[in-house]
């Protein structure tokens, strides 16, 4: 009985792991100089970072500019932005979704802190 249950559980795990819920989505292009966020239902996504004064939120006036770090959405719901040309250094960044919600990059395992928020890090060597 225990052996049947064990085999059943293993088979279920294999079947579940093989279904599309656990198979990673393919990137459209392999580029190190782009940031991606897959969020098809969002009305707007911006990248706020050390390189753009967090969208103006740390500058005089403290209003986040709605066009700062604006990402482009493709037909599959993938938001992208080109970050080529940034000077070498360490930058913290986060995605600002729908003009009110901060989220870190879910596919970047390196994190830091900005204020009380957990954000992501990117390092550019040159």
């Amino acid at each position, binding site marked *: 009985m225990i052996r049947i249950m064990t085999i059943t559980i293993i088979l279920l795990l294999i079947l579940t792991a093989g*279904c*599309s*819920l*656990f*198979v*990673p*989505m*393919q*990137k459209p292009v*392999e580029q190190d100089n782009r940031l*991606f966020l*897959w*969020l*098809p*239902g*969002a*009305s*707007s996504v911006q990248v706020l970072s*050390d390189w753009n*004064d*967090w969208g*103006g939120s*740390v*500058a*005089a*006036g403290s*209003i*986040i*500019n*709605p*066009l700062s770090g604006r990402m482009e*959405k493709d037909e599959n*719901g993938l938001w992208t932005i080109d970050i080529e040309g940034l*000077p*070498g*250094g*360490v*930058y*913290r960044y986060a995605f600002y979704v*729908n*003009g*009110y919600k901060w989220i870190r*990059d*879910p*596919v*970047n*395992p*390196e*994190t*830091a*802190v900005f204020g009380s928020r*957990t954000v992501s*890090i990117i*390092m550019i*060597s*040159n």
Partner: protein
Amino acid sequence: MSISLITMIILIAGGSDSTDVSIVPENWVFGYDCLINASACGKWKENHPVFDSTSVDAAFSVMAASPEVDLLATGALHSDTASHVGFRRARCAVKWPGTPWIGAGIYLNDQQPFIAGLSNPVLEWGWVDIDSIQGFGVSSGGVLGFQGDYLIQLSRGDTLSQLNVHSPWMGFAGVDYSRAQIHAADSTGENITVNVLSVRGDFRYFRPWLIVAGAEGEEGKWAVSAEIRRFRPIDTQWGRIEIVPGMHFAGDSIEFPGSAFVPGQRVITLGAFLESRRYFVSAGIKGMVDLSSDSLSGVSASAGMISEGGVSWDMIFGYYADGDYRAYVSSAISDSYASAGMAMEVINDSTRVTGSASYSPRDDVCAEVSVSGDIDDSLQPACVLAVTTSLGPVMCLAGIEWEYDSSPSLRINLTGLLE
């Protein structure tokens, strides 16, 4: 008023007229923008909404630029219970013709000191109140590709100076040096000096990053951070695993106005990060050993994935030697119009669960509702409903928030940029 008048004159001058005569010089570019943020907050009382606070912030900027001159002036209006109008920010910079890295400028509330670290910054934004600083800066460069800038400013009577020198990328390394000083206006204030040397190397199989920081004064005001990046023992077309050893040492008396260093820390780290080149999946684990005490020892891990079935996964876990632990797991399934998700956050003995759903009838409209509650006796439920629109440079938010044992609060916010 005067800014608007000047802008009108500039705009009229910039337009062509029937005689085809323009007073705008060649090679000049003029522009203006107006950033507006208006919000209203209130409560739901006795079956109708009652707004008890409204505020309007507007920043009107006029810009003019030529190859030699860069001008910016921003006037601001803040209105809540009373209205305030004033200069918010100004910049007047001149550049040497043909060599834009050589120049000088006068700044009002415009240049905030900031020095990056290896993860968290050595000098954090907001160290000095941006609305209190004004000063003069010069920049130079060109000698062997080096560039530098020096800024001296006044902040509430204190003198703040910052020197930055950037080397060119020398094929295998780049070096940055920053020095920030604050001299207190009176003898009771504290003088602070921060020197930071940042070295980024790039060799064939690894990239060392080093940050050395020091403060003048008594002993123990020093700090060193180093990491070896891009050491990838496994690097295939599918993805790569990067091993990142590092160390963060700091003297006992260091007090930098940033979160990069903790006084007295002797921490050695080792991280391993998986990143796929072709798929949206990543994972990482990082261990920290505190050689001086166990307070900073611990292990943290994170993983994230977007699956073919439209499900995004995000996990963070941290456990520290002093017994603190934290875990966050979230998952959401999305398509073009709707999404639904669940998140669970555990901080020590507290566990909070959040369920959320969103609907997007158009590309530029999104309605989202989330309900959260603690998994213990208190429950402390909370609910947030937000409808957002994004019409180009104009964003609108209408939201209702409700927390246990309080009246629902209402919020309407509009942010727009007119250029």
